[in-house]
């Protein structure tokens, strides 16, 4: 209880000071708004439904991109992990494409898909692909060699080997990768919305800023932070429940 109180002291003081400075009119309320107005706006965007619509749009972009990018990353990562030759052959190609910042692809994706979910999906997929590729490849490499020997003894074909041995053995670490990629997906989709795509939470943020509604702007920022935090906490809980301590060391890398 005491810890919680101490932890909330700084944010509390900042908010209090902010409110007070506006009340004594030291700071102009138009440009920065003030905490109580922001809180009211945060409730307001729920009541008029804008938050729900915007969050659903952002989620659909983030989720579809995450699904596509992560799936491709896992498939390619398994292939690279199983065949060192393939991984070596692709090395230059991978190292050439990987350093491209995902946001640099926004104008290109815009040219190809125009505005809409696909624009977001493609950029998010690109940015989720790489972490999953790397995590999966090293997870597959790290599988106990005896498991692979067993699958050979049992005369498994490639499909059976992947489904019955490799995926289950590499899953804890792959899940960690998927959780980290989910956080990336949310960030990237909001970024795409801020820079180009007229939908979702990022666009709502820009609209609020351009119409000088600082209260709504801060309200949306608060909601975006809260959504990101809850998503991460939920996925961490799932990870802990399903895999226990397995795979947690991945985060130290």
């Amino acid at each position: 209880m005491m810890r919680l109180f101490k932890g909330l002291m700084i944010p509390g003081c900042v908010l209090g000071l902010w409110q007070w400075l506006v009340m004594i009119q030291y700071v102009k309320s138009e440009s920065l708004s003030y905490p109580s107005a922001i809180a009211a706006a945060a409730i307001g965007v729920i009541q008029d439904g804008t938050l729900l619509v915007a969050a659903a749009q952002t989620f659909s972009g983030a989720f579809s991109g995450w699904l596509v990018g992560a799936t491709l990353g896992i498939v390619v990562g398994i292939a690279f992990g199983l065949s060192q030759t393939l991984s070596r052959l692709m090395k230059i190609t991978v190292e050439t494409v990987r350093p491209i910042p995902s946001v640099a692809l926004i104008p290109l994706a815009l040219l190809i898909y125009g505005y809409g979910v696909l624009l977001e999906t493609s950029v998010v997929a690109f940015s989720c692909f790489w972490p999953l590729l790397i995590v999966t490849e090293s997870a597959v490499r790290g599988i106990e060699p005896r498991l692979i020997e067993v699958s050979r003894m049992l005369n498994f074909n490639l499909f059976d080997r992947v489904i019955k041995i490799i995926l289950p053995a590499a899953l804890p670490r792959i899940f960690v990768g998927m959780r980290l990629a989910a956080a990336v997906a949310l960030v990237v989709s909001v970024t795409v919305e801020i820079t180009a795509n007229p939908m979702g939470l990022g666009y709502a943020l820009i609209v609020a800023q351009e119409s000088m509604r600082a209260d709504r702007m801060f309200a949306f920022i608060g909601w975006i932070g809260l959504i990101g935090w809850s998503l991460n906490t939920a996925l961490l809980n799932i990870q802990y429940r399903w895999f226990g301590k397995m795979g947690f060391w991945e985060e130290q890398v």
Partner: protein
Amino acid sequence: MSQLDNRSRSWFFSILVFLGFLGLWQVVATAELISPVFFPAPQKCFVTLYEQMNQPEFWQAFSQTISRMIVGFSIAAFCGVTLGAIIGLSSRARTYIEPTLELIRPLPASAIIPVFILLMGLNDSMIVAVILFSSLWPVLLNTVHGFKTVEPRLLEVAQILHLSQMEVIFKIALPNAMADIFAGLRLSLTVSLILAVVAEMLAGTTGLGQNITLAARSFRSADLYAGIMVLGAVGYITNTALAKVERHVLRWRAV
């Protein structure tokens, strides 16, 4: 000898595969299987890139973006390591500050751009401020982690040797935190390039980010691809440079 042979052979074939992809791209693009509006031939892109590099405007945009990135990143790195060390070393500071950091951590860096635009307007210092603010968190959080996970037995040794507080920081805590600090710096560097591009797109000031937006808007696809290649190269070079520094600084560690 055979190992070296093996290595250079795998490099050779790897380059061959890459050239194969380029060739495939060239064939697909010249056959116009995909619309040339957004899929120009690589040969055209490289020619455009070469032409761009002969123009002073390109280098102006290049140096603008790079200098914003470097200024923002360096200040963020300095502040992040210093603040992180203070917070990481003092458990009292942690109980007060850590929850606030946890609150800010999940916030997408780009979400704060509108705040900075509203506060500072669409200009150069806004972009640097955005880069600074967003690349501060990865270094800061990693430094805190590095400083608070000092092996307790090392601290006991320090106590026995009667080391002063400064000696403890510079001889034990800082070397211990170095690996974490560099992990944070790597993240921050990536973030700083991304935010430089995003902020330029929004602010419409000269730079590599604006270059690609303008190219896309006027359907100059070869320029767009050339711009993306340049940004990829910037990402690659800055990352490699930092990795070099890291290897030099951490060379005492048994890998």
